Every structure is written in C-alpha cells, then in structure tokens.
C-alpha cells in the first residue's frame, strides 16, 4: 500500500477510535448518569 495512503488510513482510524470513545461518553451520560435511577440521598 502507498505509504501516504497508509498514513492517512491510520489517522482516519485513530479519529474513528476517538469518535467511538466520545460516543461512549455521550451514551453513558445520556442513559447512565441522567436517566437511570440516581443513588438514594
């Protein structure tokens, strides 16, 4: 594979991984922290 193309693909995949972690944080915030029952006070 062309070296530049390989490098671009690598960057793209790192961005995809970062986006996935971002989605995970959002999902946990959306469902976990705000909608599921809070701990008793």
């Amino acid at each position, binding site marked *: 594979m062309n070296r530049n193309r390989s490098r671009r693909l690598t960057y793209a995949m*790192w961005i995809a*991984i970062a986006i996935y*972690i971002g989605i*995970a*944080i959002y*999902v*946990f915030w959306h469902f976990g922290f705000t909608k*599921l*029952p809070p701990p*008793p006070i």
Partner: protein
Amino acid sequence: MTTPAGGASSAPDEHDSRGDTRKIVGILAALAIFIIVLYGYIIPLQGGFISSTAIRADDLLGADPQFEAQMPIQEVDLGASGRSIFIAFVMLTHILFANLHLGGAWMLLSLVILDLASRKERYARLGMSLALFNVILFSAGATFAAAGVLFFISLYPTFAAQGFHIYWWPLLVEAILFGIEIFFIYTLWFTWGRIRGAWHVFLAVGYALSIYFQTLAIDTFVSGMLTPGEKTITWGAPGLLGMPWIDYLQWWFNPTLWPLQFHRVAAAVSYFGFLIALLAMLHFRDRTDPPSKKYWDWAGSFGILWGLVGLVAQPLLGLWYMYSIFSHQNQAFTNIMTGPRAWEMLMMIGLLSLLIVTVSVYFIERRERLLVRLGRHDIRNLFRAFAIVAAVAGLVLVQPAWLGGIMQFDPGTWANPLGLMYYKHIAILVLVAIGTIIIGIDLLVLREHRDKEWGNLSRASWMAALIAGVLGSWIVIIMGYVRESARSPWLFYNIIPVPGGQTYPTPVPPFQIFVVWMIGLGLAFAVFWFTSRVTSYHPEREEEV
C-alpha cells in the same frame, strides 16, 4: 513454553521468553477470590438464594387462571427447579453453538475481504477453517434448538401453545432462514478458491445477513417474553392473523427487541473472537513445525482483536438495553439491578473487567519482545498502566451497592459508598477506552512490525489467551441467565407465570446454575476442540510475509 519458532532471532535483553507467569497466577487468583466472595458473602447478603417466586408471590396471585398450568406438571427428577435447570442447560448450550454463526459470520466476512485484498495465505486458510468449523457445528446448534423447542412444549405446554402461536410468523421466517443460512455457509466453504472473489464476498455477506435476520426473528420472541407488547393475550378469529395486525407488531417489535438484537451480535462477535484465540492456542501447543507455530500465534492475536472489538461495543449497547428494561419493565430492572438478582450483574461485569485485564496482560506479554526491539518503552508502559487501571476499575465494578437486604432500598440495609452507579459508569467508560486504545495501538502502530514476531509466543501470553477464551465464553451464557432470571417468576412478564407456583420456584438457584455453566462450557469446549482438530488447515510451508 519457550517457542523460538521460525528461525533464530536473538532475544533482546530485558526479554524473558517465558513471560511473567505471575500475572497469570494473579488473574486466576483474582477470579477464584471473586467467585468465593460472590457466592459466600454477596449472594446470601443480597437475598440471592431466595427465589423470585417467593419474593413476587403476591404478583402471582393476580395471574389470569387461563394461563396457569392446564395439564399435570412434568417433572424431570432434578428437584424443584428441575424443569428450569433442564431448559437452562439446553438453551445456554445452544447459545454457545448458535453464536458461532452470529459472531463468526462477521469474522469470516472480514477474512474473505482480507483474502481478496491482500492475497495472504493465512487469511484464506483461517477463513476456510472457520467456514468448515461452522458447517460441521451447524447441526449441533440446530439440534440443541430443536431439543429446546421440544422441551418447552413438554415442560411448559401452556406457555408453548401461546408463545408459538403469537410468534408463528417470525418463527416461520426463522425456520426458512435455517435453510438459507446453511446454503450460504456450505457453498462458501465448498467453493473457496473455485469462484471469483466478488461471488465469494456475496456468499459471505449472505451468510452474515441470513444469521442476523434469523437471530432477529427469534429475538422477537425472546425479547417479547421480558417486555410483552400487550398487557394480556387476546385472540381474534381463525385465519392468517390470529389477532389484529397492529397487535402482532406490538408483540414482535416490542421495546427491548433492538437493544437485545444489537447487544447479542456484539456479544457473539466478542465470544467468537476469544474462542478462536483459545482454539488457536491449543493448536499452537499441538503443532510442532515452525510455520504452524507462526500461523496459530497470528490466528490467536487475530481472534483476540475481534474479541476486543465485540467487547468494547457491549457496554454501550448494554446500557441502551438496561435503559429499555428500566423504562418498559421496571420491576425486572429492579430484580437485576437493585434486587435479589443483582449478583448476576456483578458477576457479569466482574468477569468483563477481568477479561479486559487479561487482554491487557496478553498484549503486555505478547508484544513485550517486539516493543523492546523497537525501543517503544512508552507503549510498553502504557500497556502496563492499562492492566493496573483496568484492575482498579474492576475493583470498583464488583462492589455490591448494598448488603443485608433483598432490595437495595429496604430498611436496615447497608449502603456501600463505593458501590454507587456513578462510579461504576465511569469505571466502565475507562474499560471501554482501554479496550479501544489497545485495538488502535496493536492494529495501527504495531501492525507492520508484528509479522516478524509470530511464533515467539511466551507461556504467559499463551495462558492469557486461553483465559480470555474461557471468560469470553462464560460471559455469554451468564448474560443469557441474567435475562431469564430478570423475568422470573414469569414466562411472559405479568401474563404467563412459571406454572406450579411456590412448589416450583425460579430462577435456577446460584449453585445449580454454576454447575449448568460448567457442564455446558465443558461440553461445548470439548466439541469445539475435537471439531477444530479436523477442520483446521495448517500451513504446509513458510509463508512469505
């Protein structure tokens, strides 16, 4: 095990070819301690030995008499929970075989595409091995499914009559897809290397989609038992539709269908990946020639990565699933999160944490030699940090939220300040991040350098991959049990009870289900290994990399 396969490569300093087996001892000790504390301390103090039939006795009094047992209850001579144990064994073992297809189809598709794109022999070899493995074990999965149906009819006739009637059309689709699925997988294997690549991809996509929709068809039934589409079962006139079309749609496309479906796919992918890693490790030990050692070392790593991909997807899908249960069957949610079945979730998340730790240890040990050679001490230290942080996250996740009562908010219970869900959400997020970054580092940073190292598998990484295979499989059948016991003492929640009342309590008690898990896993692993021995293609010569 010292395995200097594939020629002499001088071991760099700092590297021990055995690896650090103390880490493996630590993982096994943590697993043993966790199980002992869970069974000896947490389960009794959370009312886990008390049946849901007893706890929900008042609810059962309101069950419609037409859905109670109409015929004498068929016992199976395994005690009061005998029927449930029978079904648990058959269906959980069925899951281990059925998930070979649901998860394996995607791994197989990736191998077909990689083979087409790179023409490296190992992709074709592993793809053919997996295809033949799944062809042969298809009948085992189908046999357990058919046996399960027979047992449902015999042991729970009222439920079976109602359930199979409501889900006639999805079950018909499922039955037809059995034929389509075996056509695709059999043809895929038989025509490997004999037809053009595009047709091969078509067959692999057809296989993956047919098993996906087959699972969707059966999931309409399975999810509908937990969150039924209607408050009761009301039949109409005879005909193609036994009730109004809109009612059928409510039953089939009930609130937990999609989260269950997607969670199942991710879990199956993870399970299959870790299982392939386990089998690859056994082949690695079984084979003595260097080309085979290199190949199975690579196959194990390939499986671990797939296992990790499925694993990091599950917490997100699982949270969606839990929220759906919370919104639409709140009592079932309290059963498994703040009630007497919460120990099952603790067990599941405990094993998941240990799996992430194990995978971290695998990468620490497996890539140690490579990282030392490349001088990448930063990655080496990062992997070590991941293992430690994952262990800390695991310690947070296995904290019981309370002790000393059946329900978390019962008077007099002790609330564990470390058991708050807020902390657990953060701990799960940390595990997801660790798993995802490990995938990135191994696939993107080390990819080009790994090939020179295949065959130099240390004993510690070999054992870590084996443990990952066992934990990855165990988790899948724990998940099945969690869903079933969340529903107890109902078959269709709040509509059809488990017949027999207090004489036949459900769910299957903790010790009995442990025995069922061990027998199911032992049986499945034995079948997988002996099948794998005759379905695996080994390299006949050194592959040019």
